[in-house]
């Protein structure tokens, strides 16, 4: 029996008409394969493996404990001499590195979203859009430079990625809304040649950002 919503004429027409929806271009097989190979060669920057998530959670508990300890030690420092803080200080550097790694993961996720959006949006909304992208790039550039100066950049692969990102973000931040799309073409060509986005994605653990740092806060 025919459902009350069914209308064979409409469905036939719709199926024909919908073929024009997002009509794909020819598959760029070789270009994509090259980027896949490059990304797989450069993989593993700061991947949080399942056991590492437990380590992150444990470290977060420790950090919280240290925070409470320091707070309570500070409260009683006048009377007891603050020995608790002295004991816990030895564990702080490793936890600090881990915190930087979590911050790096969040920063990389945000930058990936920005660059993905940049490639999809550029040229589509005119000068106002270009100005907005340049402003966002400047904000991210500040964070990139802070990351480069942080312990997170002790990892050579992450440092190399941050340097690539710095270059791209500098170019985007200097985009002139009054000029045509020549500069943006150069930036996207540069991004493709240096494989920035595949490298960036390889550096980010799978799953949405809150999941990646789940349990750490």
């Amino acid at each position, binding site marked *: 029996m025919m459902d009350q919503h069914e209308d064979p004429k*409409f469905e036939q027409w719709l199926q024909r008409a919908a073929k024009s929806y*997002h009509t794909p271009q020819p*598959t760029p097989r070789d270009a994509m394969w090259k980027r896949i190979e490059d990304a797989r060669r450069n993989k593993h920057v700061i991947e949080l493996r399942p056991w590492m998530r437990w380590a992150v959670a444990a470290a977060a508990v420790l950090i919280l404990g240290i925070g409470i300890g320091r707070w309570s030690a500070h409260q009683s420092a006048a009377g007891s001499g603050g020995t608790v803080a002295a004991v816990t200080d030895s564990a702080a550097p490793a936890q600090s590195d881990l915190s930087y790694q979590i911050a790096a993961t969040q920063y990389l996720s945000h930058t990936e979203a920005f660059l993905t*959006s940049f490639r999809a949006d550029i040229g589509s909304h005119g000068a106002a859009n270009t100005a907005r992208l340049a402003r966002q790039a400047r904000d991210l550039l500040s964070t990139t430079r802070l990351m480069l100066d942080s312990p997170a950049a002790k990892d050579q692969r992450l440092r190399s990625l941050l340097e690539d990102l710095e270059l791209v973000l500098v170019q985007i931040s200097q985009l002139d809304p009054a000029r045509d799309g020549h500069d943006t073409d150069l930036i996207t060509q540069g991004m493709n040649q240096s494989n920035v986005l*595949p490298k960036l994605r390889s550096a980010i653990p799978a799953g949405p950002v809150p999941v990646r740092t789940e349990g750490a806060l």
Partner: protein
Amino acid sequence: MDESQLIARVRAGDSAAERALYNAHVDRVYRLAFRLAGDDALAQDFTQETFIRAFDRLGSFRGDAAFSTWLHTITTTVVLNGLRKVKRFRQREADIDDAHEIGVSHRHAEPDLKARLKQAIDDLPEGYRTVFVMHDVEGYTHEEIGAVLGVETGTSKAQLSRARAKLRVALSDFAGEWVT
């Protein structure tokens, strides 16, 4: 060489087999990514990400389902997560930007049927749109869609039916096109 032998060779580290497996599936993966994303750069990114993940996780492929089903499950996960991420990012920036600017950038005067159809499909809820694109546009069966999205076949049929009903309402101005 059949596909299971090809997969075994990929697992053994044969790079020629990797390329052969990629060649066998990339067109369909890219097509689906493009249909869902509507943008070449995004479709390429999603296709690359799909194959990177697939090669990395090939050890977990047990062969219970067809390889193409397993691969398309990764594709839809990558595409839908990627699109959500882009949407969230754009929304956040749009909230910050001047409302007037947003209004101007999205205004369309007297759109034709093709533009209205595109907008109507874009406006479908994510689940409806995914099933609609896979079934009515790309020709997947409900069984394939159910296996790829991890839902019952009946759910896929119900979502398609609801998607079509919504499209019919959205395109009611053009009823003459299908009534005649």
